[in-house]
């Protein structure tokens, strides 16, 4: 099996889906000849031509609005938003239009599309090249939201997302775009949307993370192991729909849970997980569900490592939670 990084895996998934289905098209700023500022669409322009790999004017609202129209008409657009921080000009189109189109037309129309966008900190991007806005979209009924942490899932979930009948926000962890490498099967395969993955079994507590922060959670778990603390780690992968069963099963077993995410803590997705877990595992909990997250400030530049909930902070929380 070839080894790929996440960018290559995304690129591979796009290529395979475009070969399989002529309705799949890619669009966005700089995705054409240039192949995207992170090179995720590299080579697609040459293989599929300017008609299916479309550079657009600089307007995210226009990208999503026209993608919606394409989807209504029967294409499967895969718009790229260059950085997740720049998704907000398209926010109205996403939450008021894309998310509600099927519902408001009672299923007469639908607009499946996959909105790909690199998210998160750790690349010295400051305020506007580091944000993790997943919560906004999880809160919006009608959207699916997924975040792979590794090349295998990135490829398999992107293929699933493109074939999904609903609009999917596909957040790519740009901090580990190149660093996360792994074996990826050639050819097509799917990783189902809505299924979390237990990446490490343990009994002392449950660590829940996704995307870049899954790597920090894993590292913290490794370090905790050295201290004799036996963590279970869950890579959430899909935030909406949520694999509540896997989570609840794990937390009922361990009695303790820590959620790790980059976005600011208040109203981050960790809040939802804490709310659900305390509701569904109440009688099993031996410590409060704890959140190790970004702080409630804009994303900083110089102090980004202090800001990010990296392994040392997770480890500290692990120690505190097991000794609660």
């Amino acid at each position, binding site marked *: 099996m070839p080894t790929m990084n996440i960018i290559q895996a995304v690129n591979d998934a796009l290529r395979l889906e475009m070969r399989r289905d002529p309705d799949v098209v890619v669009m966005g700023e700089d995705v054409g000849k240039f192949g995207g500022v992170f090179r995720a669409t590299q080579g697609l322009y040459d293989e599929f031509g300017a008609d299916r790999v479309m550079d657009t*004017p600089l307007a995210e609202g226009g990208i999503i*609005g*026209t993608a919606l129209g394409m989807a209504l*008409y029967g294409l499967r657009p895969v718009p790229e938003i260059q950085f997740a921080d720049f998704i907000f000009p398209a926010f109205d*189109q996403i939450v008021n*239009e894309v998310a509600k189109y099927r519902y408001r037309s009672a299923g007469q129309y639908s607009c499946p599309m996959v909105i790909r966008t690199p998210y998160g900190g750790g690349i010295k991007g400051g305020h506007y090249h580091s944000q993790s806005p997943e919560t906004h979209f999880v809160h919006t009924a009608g959207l699916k939201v997924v975040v792979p942490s590794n090349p295998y899932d990135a490829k398999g979930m992107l293929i699933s997302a493109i074939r999904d009948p609903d609009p999917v926000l596909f957040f790519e962890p740009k901090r580990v775009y190149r660093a996360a490498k792994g074996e990826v099967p050639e050819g097509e395969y799917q990783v189902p949307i809505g299924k979390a993955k237990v990446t490490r079994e343990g009994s002392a507590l449950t660590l829940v993370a996704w995307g870049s922060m899954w790597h920090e959670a894993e590292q913290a778990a490794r370090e905790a192991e050295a201290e004799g603390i036996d963590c279970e780690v869950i890579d959430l992968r899909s935030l*909406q729909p949520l694999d509540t069963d896997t989570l609840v099963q794990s937390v009922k077993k361990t009695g303790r849970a820590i959620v790790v995410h980059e976005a600011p803590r208040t109203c981050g997705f960790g809040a939802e997980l804490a709310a659900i877990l305390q509701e569904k595992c109440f009688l099993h909990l031996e410590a409060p569900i704890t959140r190790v997250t970004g702080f409630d400030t804009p994303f900083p530049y110089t102090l980004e490592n202090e800001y990010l909930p990296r392994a040392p902070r997770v480890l500290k929380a692990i120690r505190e939670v097991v000794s609660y």
Partner: protein
Amino acid sequence: MRREHEVGAVPRRQRGNHREWEPGRFVKEFPLYRLVAEDGELVGPPDEVTLSDAEVLKLYELMVLNRALDERMITLQRQGRIGFYIGSIGEEASILGSAAAMDEQDWIFPCYREHGAALMRGMPLVTFLCELFGNAGDALKGRQMPCHEAWRPGRFTSISSPISTQISHAVGAAWAARLKGDPMVAITYFGEGGTSAHDFHTGLNFAAVRKLPVVFICRNNGWAISVPRERQTGSETIAQKAIAYGMRGERVDGNDLLAVHAATRRARARAAAGEGPTLIECVTYRVEGHSTSDDPRAYRPAELVEPWKRKDPLLRMRRFLARRGALDDAGDERIRAGVREELQRVLKEAEAFAPKPPLESLFEDVYAEPTPLLREQLAELEAAVAADPRVANPRHSDA
């Protein structure tokens, strides 16, 4: 693709050339296109008329239905039988003239006054009325406010309230059709207020840069709720906004069914021929309040409206048809009586449906398949209704 700046010849000793727009310049550059005068006389070039008298008569009948529908629904709203209504009184020619100029396979991306176009595209009147009631006969399962219909079989898309969002949808559909090699041209509607919105700008820009097959119809009816056109934009005409995109623009008498039809027909033909989109400004007037929620007396002197009542698009077509011997008073009365009867009958039919769609419909169509979470929430709601009927009946609940 030419990638070099085209700077043109640079004249020497050329003086500072900031363009001032002499008042009236764009009104002159975009003269109002009219085929039929207010008295019904054909005043435009006869070879530009794109409708036979029989076709005009059919559209006239639809205009009469549209008008009667609007009037009746406003009354219904006042009686508390429906919650809201927004219609097109005075703007029928802009809507029906343009919609009729499109081909069968073309898609319509409406604003919220184009109900006549939905009916033209085969939406049953009873289905439209059920949407107003939001009852069990509503094709939208009672989910949207009145006047937010959708009709897929007629390629009439789904209305949403946020202003101008439909514009880029039309552009995207046209783009898709071109990629698929289909001869579809998209038409989309918006008000002059809608030209201030984000999506107007991006939609027109995307369409023009790719020369996509779209016809943009701006119903310039002078008002965006209480905001007059002069507070909406500093441009003299809406048509001139096409220039910003390198797109064709045209200003049309929006109360002249024939002019609107002819202009749209031409724009459609050019779009289909790969010559790109057109922005058509239909100059018309919002004779009534914005919707049943509005009372224009708070901001608009009645005198302003008077001249526009005389420009009524129905009257003009009636006169036109009369002059052509295609409609006499008795014929007109027959049309009106027929419309009245139909409305009465269909209204009864619509009101016969159960007032509410079923409870479980609340959780359908959020996704193609309900997620586990939504199934859980349905069960929760069903249990709540079972435990306390007030959950589904506000009369027992509100303080």
